[in-house]
């Protein structure tokens, strides 16, 4: 049982707003964790802290063997970013590059792979997300769901040990949501360690090994998917009854 993520007493403030009030969390290799909670509960912030996109005020984080608190050495940060893939709600594809170029950019620039090898990787990951025929398309020629799948492929191209998903289906209609969730399910079946911040309760129940309910900057309740059917705390009960 290898630990991929460990958060110890993590605090984060935005000015006077105390967003994370001491998060302790451990995620082992191959585990799929869904983080749910209301807007403002700190779930996206917690996720972003794991990739050092938000700098924590207190506590310690270890991700893929890289430990950091407030600061991190640039060498460690570089390795962290290579070991962790993150996908955002707004896709954030580079609009001036084709799907393939979006994917090959990091392997070529960061891992310094030759063009042919990077293109081979792009072909592989595009096939994984079912978009082999879209390699030459620019982002604006793709639907939201296709853009999000390219964004997932772009992260996979760096061969990450951990994938973070930050409300990746929130901007999509139900049909497009379905095609993105199927890609994530496939990754799950492949044994990828994943943390998903999501509003898709049914999906969280289906793929997650563990569900974490955040409330007011703390982990309020956690457990297997059954906690969504049988919540122990009043807050989760209310959250679930609103969501279903």
């Amino acid at each position, binding site marked *: 049982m290898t630990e991929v993520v460990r958060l110890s007493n993590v605090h984060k403030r935005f000015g006077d707003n105390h967003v994370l009030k001491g998060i302790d969390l451990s995620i082992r290799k191959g585990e799929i964790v869904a983080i749910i909670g209301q807007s403002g509960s700190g779930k996206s912030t917690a996720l972003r802290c794991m990739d050092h996109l938000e700098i924590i005020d207190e506590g310690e984080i270890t991700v893929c063997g890289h430990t950091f608190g407030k600061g991190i050495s640039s060498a460690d940060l*570089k390795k962290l970013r290579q070991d962790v893939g993150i996908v955002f709600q707004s896709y954030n594809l580079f609009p001036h590059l084709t799907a393939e170029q979006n994917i090959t950019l990091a392997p070529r620039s960061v891992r310094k792979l030759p063009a042919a090898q990077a293109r081979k990787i792009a072909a592989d990951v595009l096939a994984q997300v079912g978009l082999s025929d879209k390699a030459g398309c620019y982002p*604006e020629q793709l639907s939201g769901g296709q853009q999000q799948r390219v964004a997932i492929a772009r992260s996979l191209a760096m061969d990450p040990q951990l994938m973070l998903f930050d409300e990746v289906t929130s901007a999509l209609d139900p049909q497009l949501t379905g095609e993105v969730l199927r890609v994530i399910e496939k990754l799950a079946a492949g044994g990828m360690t994943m943390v998903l911040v999501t509003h898709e309760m049914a999906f969280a129940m289906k793929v997650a090994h563990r569900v974490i309910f955040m409330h007011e900057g703390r982990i309020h309740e956690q457990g297997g998917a059954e906690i969504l059917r049988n919540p122990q705390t009043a807050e989760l009960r209310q959250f679930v009854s609103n969501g279903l």
Partner: protein
Amino acid sequence: MNQEQALYLLAGAWGTVLLSALTFACSALLGLAIALMRVSGSRAVRSTAFGYINVIQGTPLLVIMGICFYGPSIFGAAETSPLFAAVLALTVHAAAFLGEIWRGCIESVPRNQWEAAECLGLNRIQRMFKVILPQAFKIAVPPTVGFMVQIVKNTSFASLVIGFAELSYNAKILNNSTFKPFLYFGAAAVLYFLICYPLSWFSLRLERKLTIARS
């Protein structure tokens, strides 16, 4: 207007084109450096660029022109050539404006593009040159071309201080000896238009090309 006078006017137009082209090239390099300095991570570098922009934008071009032409001889340097002094002055002036225009373009690329590039492990220079600048370039085309047209017209300052023979200067000389201001300044206006219009046309084409490339 006889042939000799027409050729004299055209020679002036050539002076304007030459001065403009050299200024475009030099101020693009300096302007890009200023823009990159303005978005640098280092406070000292940002402040330096900010100071430069403020001082230059607050100084009349005529004064910069005078300093560039007469300045070197004050310090005992050999006489400055009018072309060199004019290009130097226009570059110093234009770079301050281009730097600020391009900083705005760089900053108007959405923040999440920086973030996405960062998460892929690209370092700061790679993020800037492979992700941000190509997107900023497209945004920058219209204001940059607009400013280039301004530069073309600003080259006429070179004749006022330095006596560089460009279009306005030669039109004035012809008027002084013939007293036909409407003819010569009118002809100069047409030539200015013929220099500037292709720039605007090229800008439109470039914008269209950058858009069509992805649809």
